[in-house]
């Protein structure tokens, strides 16, 4: 198996409801996998299990072929699984460097004894990772509040990449963006793929999926109802999978 991330028989129940039902999925390095499904199909729950927010009732997660014990978001981060939520979780009153290093600030010694924040070096490191991802932000001294939605997304992604994300989970990455900004974020996804990062995208936008995803997985009522190679399928077929009209003939 050359999967970077693999889930085997992941199952999660909430009371009588089986939100995720024996889902097995694989993600390769440098690949973008779109997870699609109607509201309540279980895709968010699946993602939350992978990112450590929920604990599965059954099943395992493997990273690089090894069993990964993911019981908290911190465990997931330690495995290199980073999640970019829709609200991005940036401190809008701080600058780009401060956000990328939030909670893991770089310090330097001043006058030999005092430990002070090393904003200069944090900004330089931030610039390096932004350059690596071909992201342009006019001034790193500006606070996040002054940046556009796409730039914020880029900062959130840069933070994950800086801290060695191997798998990036993006929850509706383009939902709140204008058309030009959506394009930039999708370009960024391509750049990330080129750098060998595995990406899971949750999206309602069929356009995004066909634009950047290599494979797609469709969930319905907690069950993985189909996986397709993007270039071998059509939007119609995918919609059919999501609403459940096509599987009748194919799977039974």
């Amino acid at each position, binding site marked *: 198996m050359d999967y970077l991330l693999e889930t085997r028989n992941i199952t999660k129940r909430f009371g009588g409801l089986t939100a995720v039902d024996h889902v097995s999925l694989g993600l390769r390095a440098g690949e973008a996998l779109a997870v699609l499904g109607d509201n309540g199909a279980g895709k968010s729950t699946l993602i939350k299990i992978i990112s450590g927010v929920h604990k599965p009732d059954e099943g395992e997660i493997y990273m690089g072929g090894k069993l990964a014990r993911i019981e908290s978001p911190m465990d997931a981060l330690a495995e290199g699984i980073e999640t970019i939520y829709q609200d991005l979780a940036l*401190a*809008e*009153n701080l600058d780009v460097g*401060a956000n990328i290093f*939030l*909670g893991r600030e770089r310090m330097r010694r001043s006058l030999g004894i005092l*430990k002070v*924040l090393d904003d200069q070096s944090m900004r*330089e490191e931030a610039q390096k990772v932004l350059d690596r991802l071909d992201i342009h932000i*006019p001034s790193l001294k500006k606070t996040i509040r002054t940046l556009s939605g796409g730039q914020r997304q880029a900062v959130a992604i840069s933070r994950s990449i800086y801290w060695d994300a191997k798998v990036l989970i993006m929850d509706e990455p383009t939902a709140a963006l204008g058309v030009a900004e959506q394009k930039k974020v999708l370009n960024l996804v391509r750049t990330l793929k080129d750098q060998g990062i595995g990406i899971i995208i949750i999206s309602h936008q069929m356009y995004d999926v066909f634009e950047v995803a290599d494979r797609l997985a469709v969930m319905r009522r907690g069950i993985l109802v189909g996986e397709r190679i993007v270039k071998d399928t059509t939007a119609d077929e995918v919609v059919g999978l999501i609403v459940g009209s096509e599987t009748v003939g194919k799977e039974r």
Partner: protein
Amino acid sequence: MRHANSPAPRAAYDGKASGGNDLAARGKGFAAFFGGRWVLIFLVLETVYFCFRSEGFANLNSLQILLFYGVLVFLLATAELFVIVTGGIDLSVGYVLGFASIVSIKIIEKLIAMGLDPGIALLIGAAATLVIGILPGLVNGALVAYLNVPPFIATFSMLGVCHGISELIINGVYAMGLPKLASDIGSGHLLYIAPGGAATLFQKPVVERGVSVLEIVPNIVVVTAIVVGIFAFVLARSRFGRHVYAIGGSMDAALRAGIPVKRRILGVYATSSFLASLGGIVYAFMYVSGKADAGASLLLDAIAAVVIGGASMFGGSGTVGRTMLGALIIAVLDLGLRMSGTPTFDKYILVGVILIIAVIMERYMQEKA
């Protein structure tokens, strides 16, 4: 590589920005200029006004008096700023100050009764008071961070508790009984220059009656400046300070970034309480007495200083430097009114009015900028 890369996109961005509405751009520049500076401009105008309005306002001595009576507000405003940056509020600082003024005197009294040297008694008494003075803050912080009590309620209750305990300790009268050394320190100056040019540190030289000695910088102003400076550094340059801003900016971001948010909030309320207790000790040394409501009227001033200094009550912004400007605006107003013979009640009204103006100005500037 970074230097080779960055200019191009920056130029492209600037080109786009200046292509917009010219009038809007000019308005933005105006707001951006005054947005950061109106507090300073206001302070200068206010000072100039009182220099003309009241005789003798424009001299070194007035400045020292202004700073001398300002120290408690400087300390409490710094305390309040830490809490406000996290998006909270600490209503207990005034009564923690009163509590500490009483506690310090009672401890020092006991130590001297035990036969300790006054100097050592003052030192130990002050240190012990600071330790005890952190307790209300720890309770506030624990209530807010761990039990999710709203800061307003937690600290308002603490206000009552501190008030009550203080009155119990002193049975409703004043705490007194500090040695003369305390008032020497509390009312003393750093440097004295006798008419002959002879300078002495701390000790006022013995001169003939009627000869005036130049006194430079009250001791408590020096102490306050050092302490406020240290906490300004902590807020602006330390990891703790960065986390405080992050919590105020986005609690969610702070949590997901792995910042120990609860511990930090605990630390912030403890800091506030610590500074308020220091204020209590300073009060005791200044007035050689302690009372429960010593800092009661200072709460409005402290919060006003922070808000006038541009901090948002929603958290995430504000600096010690600008808070001190806010505190100076109040201190100048206070002394200016006193010296021009206006009743002090006017001050309360004016502080309230300035506070409202400050909030409106800040809102307006933020929309423009």
